[in-house]
């Protein structure tokens, strides 16, 4: 856990930024990726998140921890991304290079492709949902947050989060089944 006290000095802000990147950049990038479905775009979003955080470090109140704060910034940046329509969004882009296996798994190419396709379907299905459902589902499924934690992070009432989760999960299930993906 990063303690703000040791970074309160103006000269240590860069050091703090470095620490925050090491700690949270990966997760934030993945959240952004699930949200925007665009690898290049999620890189930009993460960059903007940390620059924004760097500028506002002096204003950071310890009402929440850095993780919650950064996730909130990331989600807001992702929403901004949706609002800013651009021609590149209509160009075809594969989600990921299906033939790149960075972990060197021993699965066959066919299995790898099938797994990847299912995951892409999940991401696409999530992205098809409305914004209010998408945020709740991403934090729940990827960040393993409880509904209460989601409520705290997004500043949305717990009951509202709960309602959105139930409704969003139902919509996701329907969409995946429509795509032929079933979970027993």
């Amino acid at each position, binding site marked *: 856990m990063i303690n703000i006290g040791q970074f309160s000095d103006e000269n240590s802000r860069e050091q703090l930024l*470095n620490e925050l*990147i090491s700690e949270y950049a990966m997760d934030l990038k*993945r959240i952004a990726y699930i949200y925007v479905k665009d690898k290049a775009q999620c*890189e930009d979003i993460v960059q903007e998140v940390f*620059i924004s955080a760097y500028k506002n470090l002096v204003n950071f109140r310890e009402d929440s921890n850095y993780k919650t704060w950064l996730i909130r910034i990331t989600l807001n940046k992702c929403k901004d991304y949706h609002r800013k329509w651009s021609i590149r969004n209509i160009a075809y882009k594969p989600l990921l290079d299906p033939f790149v296996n*960075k972990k060197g798994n021993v699965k066959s190419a066919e299995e790898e492709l099938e797994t990847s396709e299912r995951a892409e379907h999940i991401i696409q299905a999530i992205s098809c949902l409305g914004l209010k459902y998408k945020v709740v589902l991403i934090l729940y499924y990827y960040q393993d947050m409880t509904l209460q934690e989601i409520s705290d992070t997004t500043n949305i009432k717990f009951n509202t989060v709960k309602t959105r989760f139930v409704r969003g999960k139902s919509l996701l299930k329907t969409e995946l089944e429509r795509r032929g993906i079933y979970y027993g």
Partner: protein
Amino acid sequence: MDNFDNGIKRELKNHVHQNIHFTENEREKILESAVKKQQKYVAIKLLTVTAFTLAVFTLLAIPFFANPEDNIIHKISSLPFSDKEPDSKGELPDSLFERKKKDNNQHSENDNSESEKNENAVTQDEEPNKEIDMPENHNNSEKDQEKNQDESENNPITNETNVEDSANNEANQENVNKEIFHELIKKFNNMDAQISNLVDSTNYAHNVGGYYFKELTKKEEVYNHLLSYLTHEEAEGLWSYRLVESENGLIELSMDGHPDFYLDQPYIINKINDTKFEYVQEMEPGLFGPIISLTFTKIDDQWLISNVSY
């Protein structure tokens, strides 16, 4: 959490963990951008402050540079206590600052030659305990001037100086009347005693803390006693707060009198314009000061003290 939830979590995490990574290159980009933006922000801030400072400086300097002719720094009296504006001092003829004649012999010597006159002027500056004389005293002897004119006919420089002095003296003679000013000052110095004579010193108003006037019942009547040397406005200003009109009569409150202007002490004369002169004198540090100034204004062909400040 059911199978659906578990399945989604597992597949989603596996997928992004395998395919989405944060590289060192991205870290460098972020750090670089953050520092650059910070530097840019600081530079913009610095530029803004600089521009603002320049703008303020320019605005303040415009009046100074716009009309340089109005910004001539006039020669200011060496006396440090004068609060008169330099403009009025610049108009004061040099001859106003000539020393009081010590005796007739010395004065006649001064008039004998122009060069000797100049030497004496220097001496006057060096002797502060001499009264500043009015120009009329230097023109007492027209005959002497005529003599000087005869002598200076062969000297063009001296001749020009004489012409200038003559012009100054003529102008000042019309506008300045030292005797009148001195008379007014004497009356001003006697003002407190003058009013005290109107007060019944045996009739004390305990509730107010002052003495009743013998006959006067209104403030206005007191002012009227002063109008021979003060303007009404100044008389009111000097006395209104010292007087109380009560049912039993007019009361002069007990308080310190006004400071005197000492004609036998050094003072300076400022000509503000043809109808306004100012006498300024340094005061001993104390209840009043550090200067006392009397302003004389010609109103309806009569010189009156129009302002007293101390």
